[in-house]
Structure formats: C-alpha cells, structure tokens
C-alpha cells in the first residue's frame, strides 16, 4: 500500500443519514436525492458516480448547504449542518469548501485572479493587513501552481486548466478540512485533467484533506477514490472500497455501468451489458427499485417496495433484492 493510505487515520469526519431533497415542480415532486446515507473517513476520498440527473451534484451541494435538505441529517465533525444557524454555518464553511465543475462560470469574470482567490480571506477576516493578504494570496497561487505574474490577470486571459486552479486556490484559502469536488476535471482536456488530478492528490497528502469527489467519469473516480458510491435516480445502489467494487460490481446497474467504460487498450473489450431504454422520470417516482424498469433480472416483487441498502461483506453495500445471486 502507498504512503497515501498509511498516512491517514480512520474516523468518519462526515456522517450523512437519510438525506432527502425534493424539488417542487409543476408536475409534482422531483425526488433529486431520496434517502441517502454514507460516511466519509478523515483524510479519505469518497467517489460518487452516476449519470446525469442521478442526484450526485445535489448531494454535494446539500453537504455544504447550498441547498436546504428536505429531510435527514448531515453531521460534520459533531455539528449538524442542516440545523446550523447562519453564524454556525459561516464558521463551518471555513472548514467545508467546494470546487465546481465549470471553471468558466464559477468565477467572477470582472475580478482579477488575486481578488477571486483572496475574497474568502477578507470575508472571514483571516488576514490582518494588506501585506499579509498579498503574501497569503501569493502562497495560495504557488500551492496550486499558478505563476506569480498572473496575480493581476483576469480569468478570460487564462485557459480552463488555470481557471480550475483558481477555483482550487479559492477553496483552499480558508484552510478547509473537507472539500466537495463536483466534476472538477470534466470540462478539461485529458492532458490538463491529469495535471489537476495530480494536484488534488498532492494537496490531499500535504494538507490531510478529505474529499467527496463527484464525477461521471469512472476511470477518474477509480484513480482518485478510496471508496465509491454508485447513485441511480437519487439513491445509492452500491457502495464499497474502490478496488473491490471495480473488481466485482454486484448491483445490475453497477455492473452495466462499469462494463460500459471504454478502455484505451488493444483487445481490452469485454462483454458489454447494454441497458434497455433510459432513466425514468424522477418526478413522483413509483415505489420499488428505481432501476427495475431497465433491469434484465427484474422480478414482479422488485416493483413493490424500495430495496434496502444491505451490507453483503465488510464495507460492501448493495441495494438489490436479488443481490446474493450476483455475487
């Protein structure tokens, strides 16, 4: 095992229990996140994967309270995030930060690089004077690999990779412990994507950060995560340690999803599970397994009640009534 895994102590810093987020829309109630529970250990990375609309970004936003939860609890290092007062939340935000997918729209185009990175320092009064402020901004820029000459540059002068580095520097400004990374490399080219992934992993080693890493890119999530949850229509269908889950996915959706990854190697093509039809509507969902309409193994009883997320082995959770027959 690498130094990466050894250096970290095991204790959940974040506990999520029964988390729900329903949005009221014209046609009814959209169940974006529907009873999701998971823990993240300090210093670890939990990868959250799933396809468009599965609720992964909503979950990330709920954790740092950019959305208000409909039900459930989020306990961060002993504090209940969903019930925190504005003042408590402001204090919590210095410890929990977020990096967004789109470096083009998540930073203010009228501000300079330094202003964007330094803004949290001013809001939270972390610096005493302008000299300290400048020093800290320079230091943050160095940490994420932004050249000093870009201090007064504007975002439009920079490429996507550098803009994402600004987003990362801003997230690091308050010395957080936990960062929600919402598709941080999806908008970047592969050669740049690798630079940013390496940076995020180096920062974790150096600063002992805990990540929730949200992505639809399965090769990326495997590379960076210690544990993985797979979401489907607002629910967790499978969860487990990365190596085990990739070696042997159990849930029918997990298996189809992993089999669909294109592999850049000769003759690597494995048997692909092609799913029928597409994701059904998350508005007023019918009871029962959400995946049942697309599942080749579905039985009549699958559409009766929601399948529970059951522990089938140490740390291996699967929400499927028929899970045993796929092991």
């Amino acid at each position, binding site marked *: 095992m690498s130094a990466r895994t050894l250096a970290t102590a095991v204790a959940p810093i974040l506990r999520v229990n029964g988390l729900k987020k329903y949005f009221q829309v014209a046609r009814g109630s959209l169940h974006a996140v529907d009873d999701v529970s998971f823990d993240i250990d300090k210093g670890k990375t939990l990868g959250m994967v799933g396809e468009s609309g599965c609720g992964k970004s909503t979950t990330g936003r709920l954790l740092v309270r950019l959305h208000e939860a409909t039900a459930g609890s989020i306990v961060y290092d002993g504090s209940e995030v969903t019930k925190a007062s504005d003042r408590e939340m402001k204090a919590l935000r210095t410890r929990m930060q977020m990096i967004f997918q789109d470096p083009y729209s998540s930073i203010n185009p009228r501000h300079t690089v330094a202003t964007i990175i330094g803004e949290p320092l001013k809001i939270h009064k972390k610096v005493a004077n302008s000299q300290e402020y400048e020093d800290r901004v320079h230091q943050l820029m160095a940490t994420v690999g932004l050249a000093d000459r870009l201090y007064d540059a504007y975002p439009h002068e920079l490429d996507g990779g550098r803009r994402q580095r600004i987003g990362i520097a801003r997230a690091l400004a308050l010395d957080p412990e936990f960062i929600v990374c919402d598709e941080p490399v999806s908008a970047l080219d592969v050669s740049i994507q690798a630079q940013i992934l390496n940076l995020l992993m180096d920062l974790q080693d150096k600063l002992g950060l805990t990540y929730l890493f949200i992505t639809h890119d399965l090769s990326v999530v*495997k590379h960076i995560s210690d544990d993985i949850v797979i979401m489907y229509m607002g629910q967790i269908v499978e969860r487990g340690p990365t190596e085990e889950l990739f070696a042997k996915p159990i849930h029918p959706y997990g298996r189809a999803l992993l089999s669909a990854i294109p592999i850049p190697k000769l003759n690597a093509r494995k048997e692909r599970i092609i799913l029928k039809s597409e994701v059904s509507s998350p508005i007023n969902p019918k009871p029962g397994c959400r995946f049942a309409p697309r599942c080749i193994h579905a039985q009549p009883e699958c559409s009766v009640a929601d399948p529970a997320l059951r522990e089938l082995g140490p740390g291996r959770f699967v929400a499927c009534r028929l899970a045993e027959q796929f092991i």
Partner: protein
Amino acid sequence: MEKILEIRDLAVNYYSDRKVVRAINGLSLDMTAGKVLGLVGETGAGKTTLALSTLNMIRAPQGRIMAGTVRFAGKDVFTMTKHELRDMRGKDVAMIFQDPMTALNPVLSVGEQIAETVLKHEKLGKEDAWKKAEAMLETVGIPAERAKEYPHQFSGGMKQRVVIALALACNPKLLLADEPTTALDVTIQAQVLDLMRKLIRDNGTSVLFITHSLGLVAENCDEVATMYAGEIVEYGSIDQVFGKALHPYTQGLFGSLPDLSESTNRLKPIPGLMPDPTALPEGCYFSPRCPHVMDICLKKHPTDVDLGGHRVKCHLFGAAGDGAGAAGAVGAANSASAANDAGRIA
C-alpha cells in the same frame, strides 16, 4: 485499396481582429473505403475544422482555405459547383455533430426532418419519404409513432439517435461523426455506439470518428490519426498505434489517462499547454512540451516518416526512415546523429 477521401497539404486559417488563427497546417490524410478512422486530439487541435473542410463548409470571410485539396471519391471538393456540393452533403457525406440539440430543428417534428432530407436526395414522393423516415427511426430504436414528436420531447440519447437516423437516411458513403457521444452518459453512449457500429457494418459506410477518447477509438476504429496543432502527427492501424505509440504527444495522451486495470499513484500529464494557433512555435509545434526535445526540433519542422504504414511526424525518427524525410535534409551533423541514435533506440 480504394480511397474514399484524400486530403493533401490542406491549410485553413481563421481571421479575426488583426489575428490569424492557423487551424490546419499542411495536413494530409487518406481514408480507406469501408474503414472507421479515429481522429484523436484535444480542444483546438483542428478536428472539427478538418471535418468541415471535407464538406467545403469553412465559412468566409473568417475562415479561408489557404492551400491543399480534398478529394471525395476522386472529386475535388473545393472546385465543386453549388449544385454538386448540395448533392454531396447529406447524401454521399453526412455529419453527426456533438450536440444533438443544436443539430436538430426545434420547430420541425423529427419525422419531417428526416423526410425532408430523403425528399431532397432521393426520387421519392412525400408519402414514401415519410414512410422512409418512420423506418429509419425504427432502425435506431425509436417507435414510428413518435415521428410526429418534436426534438424537445426526446431525451439526449434519443435525440442523438434521431441525428444518426437523419445522417444515415440516404445511405452515405462517408460519415463524419464529430464527438457523437460526448454529450451522452456512459450507458447511453454504449447503446448509441452499439447501434452505430451495427448500421455502419450493414451499410459498409466509411467513418471519420472524431473524439478525444482513446478508449472509444480502441473499441470502434480500424485506424487512428493523432492530431496536434492542425497537423496529423501520427497515423497507423489500431494495432500499430495502440501497440506502440511513437509520437511523444500520442504517448503523452496515453500517460494522461487513469488506467482502469492497474493502480497508479500518479498520472503522467503532458506539461504545458497547446500552442497558441496565432503564434505557432518554430520547428516542431510540440517541441515546447516534448520530453525528448532536441536542437533540431526547435529549428526544423519535422516531416512524415513512414515505418511500414505507421507514419509519424517527429525528428526522433527522422534518420531512421528509409528515404523521404531522411537525414539528407538535416543540416547540422551533430543533430543528425542525435536523431539517428534516438531513432535506433525507438
């Protein structure tokens, strides 16, 4: 083997306020009939400009074809009349765009859009054209009764199927697929590609498959070309390129990808960025980012070296080639021997 597409020394520029963007720089590429050629490269490499040139669709006054020829089935695309072009586009050569929403007309039903293409290119009456549209939708797995629906009533994956039905409606000889599944989720991507493969095989269509994903190339293509700064820097069969990538840029692309089959702690990204197309570096365009850069790379632009059908544009192989682009052209003796050494190692 019959060539469906022959591109020779193509150069395309875009002009904006006092700046000249050199999008394609003396590019040559052949496509064998009935094969699927993967064109890989990152944002700004010129992949889409190349596809648009093939249809003679570079828009003036910003875009200008500076040099070169594109021959489709032996005919020069740039000298075709308007009428000939209209016949070719949509019938002999069809294109699938990355974003299915912008490729479809939002105020026409999907059936009407397919029927329109069929009416224009085939000798069919309105009723037969509509029947053909319904049949095409069925082929891509959309029930015929949905032909009267509008694009917004379909999901992303379904819309891309409509676009595929539209592109294949007139049995094109050449299909230009520009990132056809980039906007789709991975399980839907698997569905759509499965379908495309089937249709391509059944019709013997030649395909230019533009993508940034080496995984998709490995699974869908017969040949592959790597594009960098408006040039093809490497070309070969899938076995050749995926067996042993020769160009440092192609190698860098492979190194940047997380490997699913083994655990690596660090990726090996390509340092730096794509060159500014308004100020391309002298010599080899990749030289500022290349880990193997030599003196000659900064001075002289490399030419293609053919190693048994596997072509690479790189000085590392300059002296190892057997004829064209060989050591004779290299001025300084010391850099020639350096290239020679490197060539032998490789």
